[in-house]
């Protein structure tokens, strides 16, 4: 009899709390963008396809379907971290199979070598290249995402990916080395100076 009461009581409790939880999940539902858009907004939109998907959005969709989050080299660690935060999963190191994180680059066409074949225009996902058939082509640097896609199709190999040089406006201080860093570097001279500025004249 006692057993029965106990079971009944527990069942009743379970029902009540279940009802409360169910109500809460509906009443306090967090409204938000669909997860794919949220993921997409974290990806760098380079559209380079290095993740082996035909663009950032498809990769976002794949992530939403359970694909790994560490396949975007242009985004690098920051993007992986952000994705991990968003999805509540552990960040993983970048999958080297898809390339390595590198400094931001911009495509530059060596204009006197360009033969005006327009192949690069067709390759550029963000329409960052200007030119007409048989005319010299050029890259609008501010629109270029540095995705590298125009380099391969160029028959005369006249497109270079050059790192974006810092200007006075974009320059910023380097992160100072910490004790742990300098130990890791086996640096006897444990003095923190600005690494980015190199030796002064």
């Amino acid at each position, binding site marked *: 009899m006692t057993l029965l009461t106990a079971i009944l009581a527990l069942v009743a409790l379970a029902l009540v709390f279940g009802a409360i939880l169910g109500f809460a999940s509906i009443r306090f539902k967090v409204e938000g963008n669909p997860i794919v858009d949220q993921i997409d907004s974290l990806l760098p*939109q380079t559209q380079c396809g290095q993740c082996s998907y035909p663009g950032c959005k498809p990769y976002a969709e794949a992530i939403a379907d359970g694909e790994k989050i560490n396949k975007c080299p242009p985004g690098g660690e920051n993007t992986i971290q952000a994705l991990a935060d968003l999805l509540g999963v552990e960040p993983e190191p970048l999958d080297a199979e898809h390339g390595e994180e590198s400094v931001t680059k911009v495509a530059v066409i060596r204009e006197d070598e360009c033969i005006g074949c327009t192949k690069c225009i067709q390759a550029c996902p963000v329409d960052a290249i200007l030119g007409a058939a048989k005319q010299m082509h050029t890259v609008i640097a501010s629109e270029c995402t540095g995705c590298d896609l125009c380099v391969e199709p160029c028959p005369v190999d006249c497109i270079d990916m050059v790192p974006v040089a810092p200007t006075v406006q974009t320059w910023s201080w*380097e*992160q100072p080395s910490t004790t742990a860093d300098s130990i890791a570097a086996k640096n006897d001279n444990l003095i923190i100076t600005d690494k980015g500025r190199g030796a002064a004249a």
Partner: protein
Amino acid sequence: MSQAIKLWDIHGGIHPEENKSQSNQLPISTLPLPKKLYLPLQQHIGSPSELTVKIGDKVLKGQRLAEANGFISASLHAPTSGTIVSIEERQIPHASGLTAETIEIETDGLEQWCEREVITDYLHTDPIALLAHIRNHGITGMGGAGFPTAVKLTPKDDDHIDTLIINGAECEPYITSDQLLMRERADQVIDGISVLGQILKPKRCIIGVEDNKLDAVKALRDSIDAHPKTLPFEVKVAAIPTKYPSGGEKQLIQILTGKEVPHGSIPADLGIVCQNVGTVAAISKAVLEGEPLISRITTVTGDAVSQKGNFETLIGTPIEDLLAHCGVDESKLFRLIMGGPMMGFTLHSTDLPVIKTTNCILAATEQEFPNPAQAQDCIRCGMCAEACPAELLPQQLYWFSRSKEFDKAKHFNLFDCIECGACSFVCPSHIPLVQHFRFAKGGIRQEEQAHIKSEHAKMRFEARQDRLAKEEAEKEARRKARADAAAKAKAEKEAKAKLAESQESPTTNTPTADASEGDDKKAAIAAAIARSKSKKPASNETTPSSVDIKPFKVASSQARAAHLQAQRALNAAKETGELSKEQIAEQEANVSSLKKAYEDAKAKLDQAKNGNTVAPAQEQAPSVDIKALKVASSQTRAAYLKAQRAFDTAKEAGELSAEQLTEQASEVSKLQTDYENAKAKLDAAKNGSPTQTAEAASSPTVDIKALKVASSQARAAYLKSQRAYDASKEDGSTSEDELSAQLKKVEALQSTYEKAKAALDDAKSGKTPASNPVAKEKASPSPSETFENKYKQVKVETSQARAAAKQAQKAVDEANEQGKDETQIKELETALAESVQTYEKLNSKKLVLQEKVKARKAVEASAVSQPKESKPAPETVAEQPPAEDDPTKKLKELKVAASQSKAAWRKLERELGKAQEAGEDTAELEQKVSAAKTTYEQANEAKTTAMAALNS
């Protein structure tokens, strides 16, 4: 004037050693005129100024060198008279040590002023005019970052300025330039305040001076008492407690008014404007003396200089000169700081100029500012939080900055940090907190920038996708519309054809009647011809024109084609033995009738031609017909292609029996002929259009074209059948008979192809003699064009060959990868070699042609400049050596060749690298690479020689 002013306290703050007495003993002295001045175009916050002078210009003192570019910008003036010797990128005094555009002036020592604009009666001048004056005189904030003063003084509409705060706190250790200014030039400061009063109309003005500068306080108070008239509002001097960083704008406002500038707003939102004393003095100089911001007071101090003091320094003076004047001991100089020891930045060399914000040059020895100790781990002692004037928790921000948790750092108000350095100053663990914060701020800005950029990229990407989709849709729509139109036209034509039949037009009847297989399309085409015929004379009655020739021709060729086709079909049928005797007989009849029709048509054509020779060139031709023909042509083409596709799929699927296949094939070829006919007609019509003046010359071209098309089609058909035959032979499922039948077919096709080719060749060779030289000259505006056409054609072929070679290469690679058996690979490789050979041949041909074209062009170019009569004959032109004609062009070609070969070489090298990495056998690749390299080197050499030749 010195009643007590209520003061508030700020949180935190520190008391570093002041070290001001070294430099504030002597009065301000003037530096001798430097030989050179260096003026960076950007010495202020905002966009760089826009140059108004150029190299070689003589400039006068005070003359504008660059003007404000945009709202937040400032102009720049010549600090003395002299010559502009260069404008180039030079290192600028900035923490980054980066370069920026800098004007270099060689001074002439004359100090010649340009005309100065003075506003003596500023109390009755419009504030707007005063603001413009300040703006034109390049005045920027002289205490801090160099914000353009005019911008700061331009209030937003709803801001009423209540309090003007003049910042004379100078809380940084070592610096005494403001102190000296206030002590010696208090009147200037007060005049400036009265100008500001006229602009801003404040209720009161407070000058905040730290109480370690009582001499300055006294001088200011005396000056205020001496200027009662020009100050229509209350002006007070507040001696505030000495504490770093009381001179920060926000901190000074808090000390003097007790108000905090809310996060994200500016003091003007509180009705407060804050200006540095130096700026105020510069304003008074600009207004009362017409002197733009061309010099400033700079403190030179630090143990590495012997004569510490304050100097009136021209903007642009090299720091080298300044230090030399002060007796610098270079061996002791260890840290060179622009600005104060708390917020200044180190300079990378002495070869940098003084700029508008340079209040101090601190040449420190190692004893003074030794190397910082190695940072230890934060012990969370909280001393930094106690020192922070912004009431932040620096240690917390440090953790976040260090681990790059930027969102958290931002959440905990990282951007309220004024980078005063108080936290680093007190940190017992020697942690360079400020640098961590600067790094984090930069990182956050970069992230934001990257986010904006990625959003932008996304937009552009999506726009592109949309565009492509739209283009696709449009194409689709057009195709559909065309099909619809064609269908309609067809219906119409049918109707008309019926009409025409009933009218019994003799010409139209011939082919249609004979092509009695019930082919609607043929009928339709014929109807179109009939229509065009009946129309043309109608619209053009006076001229029995050459236009008339076209339809005849078309009809003739059509008839011929039909005849040939029928003949072929007959042959095929005979050979395959599929058809019954009757059928063959029937077909034979058909063929002969077609032949007759063709002969008729030809005769008519000849007739027409003969009639035409006397007729003058015809100018008018109905374009409507062309359109109709075009439609017909594309329609038939579409039908043909569809049939072809269907046929191919069927063949591939192998579902159909041989008969069915042949049936389909004949259907396809029929359609093809239809298409060709239509096209030929179209071409004909085009040629007859008014733009063409010499149809005699062009007609062979058309023929050649048609023939070419026919030939290539024939070839394609032949090859296809050959392939099919091979395939069926291999899989061995087909019976012997079938095979032999197929073989025969193949042979037939081959012969067709050969014939077509021969015809084409004939036509080609026959073309030159046939064409009237006069007409030719008329027809081709320049003799080079033919070459060019040829060249183009060869170019196309070359690229095709290259593509083929590439494909072959790919196939080989794939085969290699997939580990196919060796014979296959060998086969593929031979194919590759062949295609490469073809390509090379074509390429060399192309190059030859290129030269020729160039030669022609060059001659033409020279010919154009000559009188027209002396236009040389093309033959003579061709003999001229091409290289001399246009070296630049040639050079360009060579460049292209060089870069192409370079690209090839590089690609190969990359491949080699990959192969090496993968541990594959690389001997062959290596050979290839070296070959490519030699090619490149040769090309490059050629290029260089050409270049050298060009240069000499």
